[in-house]
């Protein structure tokens, strides 16, 4: 088992039960319970509230830690991760959340696709003469993946231009045939219907004579056909309204419900005044011109393809869900299940987001709006406000398994608190005497209260005489050989803006037979010695803000006393199970 690196997680107060709006009850037993309650790092809820210090933000106005769960996010920019083009949010509604330029991902392996021109004739002109006639980049272009060697020729798609591939692709079906838009269909129908006499008013179920009756339509065309058909039906039926009302009003074929549905989906344009006249029933679509699609239950072509391509030729669920919505696809039986029909995926746009404090609405973090820069305009990270805690072993008895803590023997650790503030801070620590959980380890903080000097400019320190070692004051009885004995009530070491103290732990034995309860097996990571610690930090600031500060300083009116208190969890290591 890999040895565990000591860690410190901080609990964001947003998930603290005492702040979750339960105060209104005023129930005294509940309040007492909350006061005595120690934070249990193994409680299932704790998983969601513990963060490393680097993940946390800090709101200067509320003087509170803000975790990723308790900030409000706002999108600053949308951009394509491939071409770094910034997409205006107005385009987003009309064009969707994918890059509409030439950025595509490989449908097979999601690698980036590049646009390359196809050389017209690959001449086997070999090593001897590096021919100086590179093909002029004019020919048809294809998308190729340099990783898995997929290319758009596999689905029969070539492009005429090397730019605006997205627009070109939208007009091409697999196989390179041009996709007919609804307008094209309409024009074609108009040309065809010149010969015929009027619309197909009479229901003709045996319309085999009409060749394109069961023509496969793509989604968009089918919708357009259906829409125009129902619009004409509505107009017809309202013209000849019958006296029978009410009874037929609720079926699928009822014009009123239909017009209601259509007005929902198409923005209310079809719902005209005359529909109030309670029209009778009307017929359904009968041909593909009217938007009827007959399910073709003949799957022999798919079976044949499966025989040819085998399992490797089918697509995975991931690949099919990654496929962009393609308006040109034949919709009826869902999208294709074969890799030979996968289309390139336009890159999904990404966002840059700013974060706000949900309480006071102040901005906590705001990135530069330009896509190419990674800087932030505002970034209030918690590590600039609350002390960093690092754990170092000091005196650990030898363990049968290296890298673990021996049970039932006192181990000592040095906790170093580093003050990032430019004010002196007072730190008060509290831990439960025994850790919560099934295996209660004993914890003693040898110096629970201390003061850390203010942070100063790093260069001030560096430019001072480096031989001046008086800054590092070491308490405790120093032995001749440099070994020290940790003393209760005294800090271990002190520097410019940091203080080390000693914590002594006696890990519990993990032996099951000593546990009086029904011995469940050891749960995952239950052997990790985790200690909840309550940290309370106090400091004085120049009174400038109006709403900050909990208690006004007595000594001077210009000073205000601030405090911040939170739970954190210190992971010291694994306890030996032997």
């Amino acid at each position, binding site marked *: 088992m890999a040895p565990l690196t000591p860690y410190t997680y901080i609990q964001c107060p947003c998930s603290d039960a005492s702040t979750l709006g339960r105060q209104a009850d005023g129930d005294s037993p509940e309040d007492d319970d909350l006061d005595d309650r120690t934070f249990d790092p193994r409680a299932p809820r704790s998983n969601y509230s513990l963060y490393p210090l680097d993940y946390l933000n800090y709101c200067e106005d509320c003087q509170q830690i803000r975790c990723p769960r308790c900030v409000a996010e706002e999108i600053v920019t949308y951009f394509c991760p491939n071409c770094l083009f910034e997409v205006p949010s107005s385009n987003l509604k009309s064009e969707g959340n994918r890059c509409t330029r030439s950025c595509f991902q490989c449908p*097979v*392996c999601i690698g980036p696709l590049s646009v390359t021109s196809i*050389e017209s004739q*690959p*001449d*086997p*002109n*070999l*090593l001897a003469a*590096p021919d100086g006639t590179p093909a002029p980049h004019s020919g048809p272009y294809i998308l*190729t993946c340099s*990783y*898995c*060697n*997929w*290319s758009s*020729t*596999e689905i029969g798609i070539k492009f005429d231009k090397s730019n605006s591939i997205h627009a070109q692709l939208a007009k091409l079906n697999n196989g390179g045939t041009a996709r007919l838009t609804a307008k094209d269909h309409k024009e074609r129908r108009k040309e065809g219907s010149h010969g015929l006499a009027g619309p197909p008013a009479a229901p003709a179920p045996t319309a085999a004579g009409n060749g394109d009756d069961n023509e496969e339509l793509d989604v968009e065309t089918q919708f357009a056909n259906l829409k125009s058909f129902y619009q004409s039906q509505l107009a017809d039926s309202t013209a000849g309204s019958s006296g029978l009302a009410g009874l037929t009003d609720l079926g699928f074929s009822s014009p009123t419900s239909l017009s209601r549905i259509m007005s929902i989906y198409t923005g209310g344009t079809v719902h005209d005044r005359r529909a109030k006249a309670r029209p009778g029933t009307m017929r359904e679509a009968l041909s593909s011109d009217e938007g009827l699609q007959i399910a073709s239950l003949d799957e022999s072509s798919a079976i044949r393809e499966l025989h040819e391509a085998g399992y*490797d030729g089918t697509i995975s669920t991931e690949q099919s869900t990654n496929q962009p919505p393609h308006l040109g696809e034949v919709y009826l039986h869902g999208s294709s299940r074969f*890799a030979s029909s996968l289309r390139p995926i336009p890159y999904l746009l990404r966002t840059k987001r700013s974060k706000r404090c949900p309480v006071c609405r102040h901005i906590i973090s705001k990135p530069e709006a330009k896509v190419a820069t990674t800087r932030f305009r505002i970034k209030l990270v918690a590590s600039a406000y609350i002390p960093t805690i690092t754990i170092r072993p000091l005196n650990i008895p030898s363990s049968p398994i290296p890298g673990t803590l021996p049970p039932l023997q006192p181990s000592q650790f040095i906790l170093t608190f580093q003050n990032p503030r430019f004010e002196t801070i007072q730190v008060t620590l509290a831990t439960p005497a025994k850790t919560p959980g099934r295996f209660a380890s004993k914890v003693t903080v040898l110096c629970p209260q201390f003061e850390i000097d203010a942070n100063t400019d790093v260069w001030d320190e560096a430019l001072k005489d480096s031989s001046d070692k008086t800054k590092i004051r070491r308490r405790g009885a120093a032995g001749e050989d440099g070994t020290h004995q940790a003393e209760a009530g005294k800090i271990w070491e002190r520097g410019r803006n940091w203080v080390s103290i000693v914590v002594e732990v006696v890990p519990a034995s993990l032996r099951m037979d000593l546990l009086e309860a029904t011995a469940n097996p050891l749960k995952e990571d239950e052997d990790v010695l985790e200690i909840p610690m309550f940290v309370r930090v106090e400091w004085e600031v120049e009174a400038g803000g109006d709403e900050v500060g909990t208690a006004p300083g007595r000594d001077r009116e210009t000073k205000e006393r601030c405090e911040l208190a939170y739970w954190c969890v210190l992971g010291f290591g694994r306890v030996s199970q032997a």
Partner: protein
Amino acid sequence: MSSSSSKRHSILPPTSTSGPKPPVQFSSSITIADSTVLTGSNPILISSESVLHPRSRIDSLAGRISIGRRCIIHERATLGSVGTSGRITERGVTLGDYVTVEVGASVEAGDTVVGEGTVVGVGAKIGAGAVIGRNCTITARSVIAAGEVLRDNTVVYSNGMRRVDRRGVAELRKKGQARQIGVLRMMIPSNPGKFQ
């Protein structure tokens, strides 16, 4: 870059020249760098215009190694290392023509065949006895198990996924390889005499 020292020093330790010197059979037009390592006891055969980069390693201990025409063996690529089976066969590794073995890739010995025009990617590993077809692409860090057989034009990618390359650019690839060799011959000082 400062020109204080004209000689560049490698961070790698010097190549070990221990072990037996294998019998070699070189075409006159090959490019083989001085620091290429050839070891083993079985013959090593390199056909015309192939390029062996510095610190590429060929081990014929587990069988004969034959490299086809216009192959490129990159730095730290290993041909013919004894596989986990430890099998010793007559034909250790056979590379067809136009094969590229990229940096750090390894082709184990034991009747292993790599077909014409195949690219073995960076850090890929081909097990003993595998038979790779023509114009295959083994992408970086892919592993081909011992004894596996790949059909022509197979692409192995993304932790062992397979697909068939239908681009039909084998001829273009060969042309590119030929040009690359043309450049490499100018870049790499050849010293076949050292091994003969």
